[in-house]
């Protein structure tokens, strides 16, 4: 046979074999992929979750502890075999607490990265920015805040509403602490309005009238006149739903004027930042928290912090850390309950049927009519630099 002909024949053969090999490999890969990837973000070895929250900017001091709390639970779960053999991978996009960026981040996670669910949204405006998109894409999402309205199978929240928290703290201050003249210091926006709902409900049930409501505009730094107005109304207790800075400043300036009602607020009253700002002036502050206080020294609090410190030795305890920890524990629980053959539909079914779940630090429940996990609050009061529980877990509706 002619050598050129031999070479041509040989090369044709090789090319043909090569093409056959490539085709076989492609067919095998497709089959393997189809078998392994049951849903977007789910493979035999991994579940990909995506979060969008501030990695930079002024609210980072809230989101960093949250991130550490969540991440520690996921790492711990992975270290113990994962979920049905799958490791959780948590990818985060930075929104710097800007709603436009939250939406961009969510789109990236869903459309480019193919995440199974969006786990980790912080803030009311940022959550509201992505809710319609994620609902349209039928991607379950989990926010630290209360679940946005209207409820859908895809929207799931964590913290109770400010109305529930203000309700319980007001009720406790009147019923248990015997305070008769309650004032309400409020930020003149939705936050203050929602808090007022709870205060009014509690006082109405107890047959007590609100003595004074004193407002301030968002961005106010000085509270001297507000505190004086409350003093003029002769209040003995003040409920305030606002930022950590505003509550701390109002209390501090009250002390400067020797005006010392009993102050009541929500979980931020148990935060590290408020404790740092007020020092000894924090004693007496009452707060309603839907999560175990990180300063309470309870076995649950110690255990949770120990888990976080295992992965983040320099982590500083903060109430958002415990929120993230609880939320992540809940997520691991429902992912397990959804079964090995994991799909978004099965996750949603697991959430709707979750019922009550007690994470180490927070009682939680979900149902078809309740999409905000927090199911109870505890009342604490600072005494000698430590928050002391004044009640057991008190149920809330938390729809």
């Amino acid at each position, binding site marked *: 046979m002619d050598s050129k002909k031999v070479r041509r024949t040989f090369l044709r053969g090789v090319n043909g074999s090569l093409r056959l090999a490539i085709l076989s490999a492609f067919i095998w890969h497709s089959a393997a992929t189809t078998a392994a990837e049951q849903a977007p973000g789910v493979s035999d070895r991994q579940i990909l979750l995506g979060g969008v929250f501030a990695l930079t900017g002024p609210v980072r001091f809230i989101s960093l502890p949250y991130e550490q709390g969540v991440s520690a639970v996921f790492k711990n779960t992975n270290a113990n075999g994962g979920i049905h053999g799958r490791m959780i991978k948590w990818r985060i996009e930075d929104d710097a607490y800007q709603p436009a960026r939250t939406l961009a981040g969510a789109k990236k996670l869903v459309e480019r990265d193919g995440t199974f669910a969006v786990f980790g949204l912080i803030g009311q405006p940022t959550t509201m920015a992505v809710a319609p998109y994620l609902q349209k894409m039928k991607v379950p999402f989990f926010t630290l805040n209360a679940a946005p309205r209207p409820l859908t199978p895809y929207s799931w929240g964590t913290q109770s509403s400010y109305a529930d928290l203000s309700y319980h703290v007001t009720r406790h201050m009147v019923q248990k602490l015997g305070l008769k003249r309650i004032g309400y210091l409020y930020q003149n926006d939705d936050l203050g309005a929602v808090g007022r709902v709870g205060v009014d409900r509690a006082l109405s049930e107890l047959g007590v009238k609100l003595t004074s409501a*004193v407002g301030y505009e968002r961005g106010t730094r000085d509270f001297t*006149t507000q505190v004086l107005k409350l003093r003029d109304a002769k209040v003995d207790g003040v409920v305030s739903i606002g930022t950590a800075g505003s509550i701390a400043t109002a209390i501090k300036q009250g002390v400067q004027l020797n005006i010392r009602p009993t102050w009541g607020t929500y979980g931020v009253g148990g935060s590290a930042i408020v404790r740092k*700002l007020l020092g000894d002036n924090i004693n007496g502050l009452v707060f309603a928290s839907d999560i175990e206080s990180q300063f309470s020294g309870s076995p649950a609090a110690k255990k949770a912090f120990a888990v976080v410190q295992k992965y983040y030795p320099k982590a500083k305890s903060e109430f958002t850390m415990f929120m993230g920890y609880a939320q992540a524990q809940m997520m691991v629980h429902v992912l397990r309950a959804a079964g090995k053959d994991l799909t978004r539909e099965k996750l949603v079914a697991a959430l709707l049927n979750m019922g009550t779940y007690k994470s180490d630090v927070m009682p939680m429940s979900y149902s078809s009519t309740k999409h905000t996990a927090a199911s109870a609050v505890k009342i604490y009061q600072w005494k000698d630099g430590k928050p002391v529980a004044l009640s057991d877990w008190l149920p809330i509706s938390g729809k």
Partner: protein
Amino acid sequence: MIQYVMAGLAYGSLYALLGLGLLLTIRSTNVLNFAQGELSTLMAFICFAFAASLGWGAESAFVGSLVVAVIVGFVLYNVIIYQIRRRDQEQLATVAISLKLAITGLVALYWGPEARIFPPLFDVQRFEVLGTVIPANQLWMILAGLVGMVLVGTFLRFTNLGLAMRVAAENPDLAQLLGVNLRVVGSAAWVAATLLGTVTGVLLASSLFLSPYMMGLVILKAFTALVIGGMVSPVGVAIGGLMLGLLEAFVAYTLTPLLQDSVGLFIIILVLLFRPRGLFAGQESWRA
């Protein structure tokens, strides 16, 4: 009622001090210094750093921050403002706004965005006068305001540099012909404004908490004081600041604290509509 008045006078004094700083820079260098509030914040943080990080006593930290204020004011004017003035006067407002954003960003980046406790400057927290509790901070604010106003007035009226500043404000060309060094005048104005801002920032941080965003509405009210003074009269600015503080307290006492922050904005609108040259128009301008 007395406590409302004291609060009004205290904050009015801060508005007056900041307003005087704005007046000095605009009259001497034609720059409406939008960064005046942020400079105050920066100097408060520097005072904090001296006390918290270097362990200086409160008084030493405060004096140290005044020394740094002289340097900062001098450098800011000569390195940035003066150079841009020479090339393109119209860009000065943009520069001032850029400085405002840059300083806030740098302070937040270096020290972090969260609020913190400012080291106490005074041992005594409050005084009781005829049964009325007055926070010590407020008394110091009023005292600082009085001293600041007297010093600025004395400086402008009785010193050669003050006189030079007044001449340069009225007619820069004439001033130069008379041998006034405009660069020296400008440097002095910015140094003085930064010093006034330092006092304001430190006193405010003592009363509230130290934070990169603490000046917020306060500087807006200093602008109100400036407008009341017609951007011309130091006496007008000082009285404007005090008047605004007292009006805010009056509104809070008689109506609601919710409206007190709006008072300044209403005044600006009214003054610009009906007395755009300020409430003290007719006085010889730039007269202390």
